[in-house]
């Protein structure tokens, strides 16, 4: 490993002009080694860090090398005596070669343009995608010693990533030696608070309640002040740590803020710290402030606490991150928590029968979901780069062949072989550098575009940046290709006997059968890869269309949603909350354009929320248990979303706190428990309450991609005393969304000026958020497909057009002898189609091999979809046909007389 890095640096040093290298080469290597020793002693010797250092050094060396060569070239112009340097002075010939290369390339703009665009597309697409991949998936988390950080889950057979109970986490915090420390946070549901503003209405901010060890576990320190103490782990501690963002916008970065108070939900919190701008919360995302999480045992009735605190062995509601003690591994930690579970099972057999704890690397945990998608994109990007390389190779082969005669003549006239090869090499380098420059512009724009399309759905997207190392990598790969294929033939050509070359070219053969075959192989592989990309893109497009058409079980059109949070200080009384929601709903209902107004604790198709146990007695009289999504609703919920009422009735004004608790269940839950019709009138228990089923309604999707879920609807009027439900309003209106929101806001201000219309969105945009990542994938794959298609077309065009040039005389003779133009065309085109057909065959095989990967991405769509294969082949075939037709048509324009006379 180390010696490889040293060799890379040494190789880079060897690229310096000889005079410079002899003077400073070994010294530079020593300085690199000194610096590496020092750098690695300071941090910890990880191979990533030392590679980074090595690549930085290499980049610096290459830059210096170019600068030195550039300077010397300038000097060569400035100082006449320098021209008297001995013949073949490396500097002099390099400068001359470069100038000549530019001249030659400018004389053939088509070649240069195609080569540069090809390279630029390949390099640009790759660097952009790999920059994202690198920052999202491969780069370590932005915390000190990130490999030591783990996520702690409670696992059940049905749900491997369940939240944990307070007492379990406290046990783990104290009794697991493999944990150096553990941070606990409440992110079960989003905690928000109304922050009082000195002027104007309050601002809704996002709060994350955390334990005292949360920040120390991540090894982050505040910019100002302190974080929390153990004795502050109480819901009523009333201390707060601000995010840098909140401190900047709300406190104008006042350094004397520590000790002052802010008002959250009408309660004063003392500011004890401000976090650094670089801190990104791993659990909470965009958090505005942190408050202490309640960790005392039992249900704390601190009405003013921002998050509920109910710590026993049943209430699963907390998340935890732990830092492994030095020398401990995930496996050791897992063994120790397993032992803890066994102790707890012995003590509470009923509770812990199925409960386990699971330790997972935090990095894995965060990026896990995007992994497959990102690897598919990486694969696609690599394919595009390969196609680009093949194209460049092809282009250079053509050039080398075209220059065969010239090379032979120059060799015959006594030109040194090394010089001729160097000349070709320089040409390749000039093209590659130009391609790299354009490519980096594309890459830069590409990263920006990628982030613009998909910031929300990508984990860690705030850390994505344009990666210069990756750009370097792509440039090096393409330069290598250009050099290999550009110089190889040149070396061969320089060995060719001049007389043979002259005769050969005079006879008009296509200059080396081997090379021509090689070129056909290159184009075939290009077509194969392009087909694979097209099929991949096609499968994703089909999956996406299917997903858009999926019946979510309700109609989002025309529905506007927003949240209203009732501060506990003024709305502590459940009666008051019921009255508020009832009255506000009535006012909304009476607004112009509003057809239905309702409120729910969680919007449909928005993911899991409040998955509670559903205990019932089966028709056979056995006690059974299911789990279901609990939703608390108010107003005309069914009509707003057009969810059908199948049996029984919906809630009405007779369902009050003092009447029998009633519930409405979804069809799938009814079927699972008692059967559609017969479920009405049955009783089940959830939480501590028995509910009677009064109605059965249609299923709705649990998330925009997923399956229908068993759902229980409870009436807010009956269930308001359970907690201060943060209800999301949903209003179906014929007016535009903005007008509805404005009216809702006006009504709310009339009602209580301290309340906020929070996160106003249309229901369609709520769903679109869940589609965003799929759309993003799709866009990228489609882009790659299009690039691949273009490059494949360029390849086919190049090969055929060159073949036509070489066969001009043959074609001329055939035309002179009376061949039909269509025959001539067909013979040229036929050559292209054979190449294309072989490519398609290999491509289809490759695409089938890829199907397994695609299956995991394209939910519910068969990756072997014959329609997709047919369309992809058709598109590719058409493009190849067009690319081949142009040279074929040119072939028929050959003037027989001209061709025959030209010999």
């Amino acid at each position, binding site marked *: 490993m180390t010696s490889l890095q040293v060799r890379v640096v040494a190789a880079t040093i060897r690229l310096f002009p000889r005079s*410079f290298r002899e*003077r*400073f080469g*070994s*010294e*530079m*290597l*020593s*300085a*690199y*080694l*000194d*610096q590496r020793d*020092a750098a690695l002693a300071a941090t910890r010797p990880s191979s990533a860090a030392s590679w980074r250092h090595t690549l*930085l*050094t290499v*980049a*610096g*060396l*290459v*830059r*210096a*090398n170019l*600068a*030195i060569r550039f*300077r010397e070239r300038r000097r060569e112009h400035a100082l006449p005596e320098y021209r008297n340097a001995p013949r073949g002075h490396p500097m002099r010939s390099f400068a001359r070669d470069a100038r000549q290369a530019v001249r030659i390339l400018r004389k053939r703009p088509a070649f240069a343009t195609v080569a540069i665009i090809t390279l630029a597309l390949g390099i640009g697409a790759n660097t952009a995608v790999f920059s994202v991949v690198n920052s999202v998936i491969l780069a370590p988390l932005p915390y000190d010693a990130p490999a030591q950080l783990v996520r702690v889950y409670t696992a059940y057979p049905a749900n491997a990533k369940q939240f944990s109970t307070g007492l379990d986490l406290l046990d783990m915090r104290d009794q697991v030696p493999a944990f150096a420390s553990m941070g606990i946070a409440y992110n079960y549901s989003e905690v928000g608070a109304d922050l009082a503003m000195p002027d104007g209405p309050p601002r809704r901010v996002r709060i994350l309640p955390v334990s005292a060890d949360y920040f120390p576990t991540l090894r982050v320190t505040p910019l100002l002040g302190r974080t929390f103490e153990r004795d502050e782990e109480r819901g009523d501690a009333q201390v707060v740590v601000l995010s840098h963002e909140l401190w900047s916008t709300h406190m104008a970065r006042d350094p004397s803020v520590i000790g002052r108070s802010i008002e959250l939900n009408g309660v004063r919190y003392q500011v004890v710290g401000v976090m650094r701008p670089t801190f990104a919360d791993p659990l909470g995302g965009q958090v505005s402030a942190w408050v202490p999480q309640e960790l005392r045992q039992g249900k704390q009735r601190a009405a003013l606490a921002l998050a509920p605190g109910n710590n026993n062995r049943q209430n699963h509601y907390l998340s935890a991150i732990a830092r492994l003690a030095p020398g401990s591994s995930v496996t050791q930690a897992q063994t120790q928590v397993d032992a803890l579970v066994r102790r707890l099972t012995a003590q509470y057999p009923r509770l812990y029968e199925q409960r386990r704890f699971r330790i997972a690397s935090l990095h894995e945990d965060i990026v896990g979901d995007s992994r497959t998608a990102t690897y598919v994109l990486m694969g696609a990007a690599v394919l595009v780069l390969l196609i680009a390389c093949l194209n460049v190779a092809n282009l250079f082969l053509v050039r080398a062949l075209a220059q065969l005669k010239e090379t032979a003549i120059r060799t015959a006239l006594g030109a040194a072989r090394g010089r001729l090869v160097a000349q070709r090499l320089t040409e390749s380098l000039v093209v590659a550098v130009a391609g790299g420059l354009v490519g980096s512009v594309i890459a830069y724009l590409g990263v920006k575009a990628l982030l613009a399309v998909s910031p929300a759905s990508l984990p860690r997207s705030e850390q994505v940046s344009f990666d210069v190392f990756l750009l370097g990598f792509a440039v090096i790969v393409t330069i290598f290709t250009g050099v290999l294929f550009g110089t190889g033939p040149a070396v061969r050509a320089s060995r060719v006997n001049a007389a043979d070359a002259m005769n050969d070219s005079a006879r008009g053969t296509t200059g080396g059968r081997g090379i021509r075959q090689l070129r056909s192989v290159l184009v075939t592989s290009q077509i194969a890869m392009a087909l694979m990309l097209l099929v991949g893109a096609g499968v994703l497009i089909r999956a996406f269309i299917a997903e858009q058409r999926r019946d979510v079980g309700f109609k989002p059109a025309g529905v506007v949603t927003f949240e209203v949070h009732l501060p506990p200080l003024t709305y502590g009384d459940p009666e008051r909350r019921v009255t508020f929601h009832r009255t506000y709903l009535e006012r909304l209902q009476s607004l112009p354009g509003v057809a239905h107004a309702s409120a729910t604790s969680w919007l449909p198709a928005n993911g899991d929320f409040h998955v509670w146990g559903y205990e019932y007695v089966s028709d056979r009289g056995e006690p059974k248990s299911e789990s279901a999504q609990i939703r608390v609703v108010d107003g005309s919920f069914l009509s707003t979303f057009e969810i059908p009422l199948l049996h029984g009735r919906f809630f009405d004004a007779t369902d009050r706190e003092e009447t029998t608790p009633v519930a409405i269940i979804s069809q799938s839950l009814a079927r699972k428990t008692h059967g559609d019709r017969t479920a009405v009138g049955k009783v089940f228990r959830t939480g501590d309450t028995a509910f009677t089923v009064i109605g059965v309604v249609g299923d709705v999707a649990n998330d925009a991609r997923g399956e229908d879920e068993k759902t229980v609807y409870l009436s807010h009027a009956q269930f308001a005393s359970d907690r201060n439900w943060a209800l999301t309003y949903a209003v179906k209106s014929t007016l535009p969304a903005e007008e509805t929101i404005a009216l809702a806001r006006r009504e709310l201000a009339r009602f209580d000026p301290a309340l906020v219309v929070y996160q106003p969105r249309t229901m369609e945009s709520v769903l679109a958020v869940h589609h965003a990542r799929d759309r993003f994938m799709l866009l990228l794959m489609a882009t790659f497909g299009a690039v691949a298609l273009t490059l494949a077309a360029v390849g086919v065009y190049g090969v055929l057009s060159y073949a036509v040039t070489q066969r001009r005389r043959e074609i001329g003779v055939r035309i002179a002898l009376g061949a039909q133009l269509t025959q001539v065309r067909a013979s040229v085109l036929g050559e292209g189609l054979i190449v294309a057909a072989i490519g398609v065959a290999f491509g289809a095989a490759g695409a089938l091999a890829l199907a397994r990967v695609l299956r995991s991405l394209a939910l519910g769509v068969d990756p072997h979809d014959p329609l997709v294969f047919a369309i992809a082949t058709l598109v590719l075939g058409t493009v190849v046909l067009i690319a081949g037709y142009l040279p074929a048509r040119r072939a028929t324009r050959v003037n027989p007389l001209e061709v025959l006379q030209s010999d």
Partner: protein
Amino acid sequence: MTPRTTEPSRFLPLPPLDFQVLSVLATRELHGYAIVQAAAEALPGQPRLDVGSLYRIISRMLDERLIREVKPPRGGPSDNRVRRFYTATDLGRAVARAEALRLQALLTSAVTLRLLETEG
């Protein structure tokens, strides 16, 4: 190569990296990596020297007679790495000083001071 002039002002303004190298060599005799280290310590927050740039600059400054090679001091580390030591010539010191004066004049000018005031 003969230097075209010995007038320090001819070299001004110095590129930032050149200034780093020249200023740390003005008072000391240092080898390659030690220069990088000294520059990073003396001028934190400046663009960091890398090995490539360092020797590009050393090569040029030797040609321009701004620095010269000196004998390695005794008692240095005795491994087989090549470490040549450099220090500034009189001309080099004069150039570094001239650049420092230039920067000082720039920083204490009324225009700059106003800029710095508005920032706080």
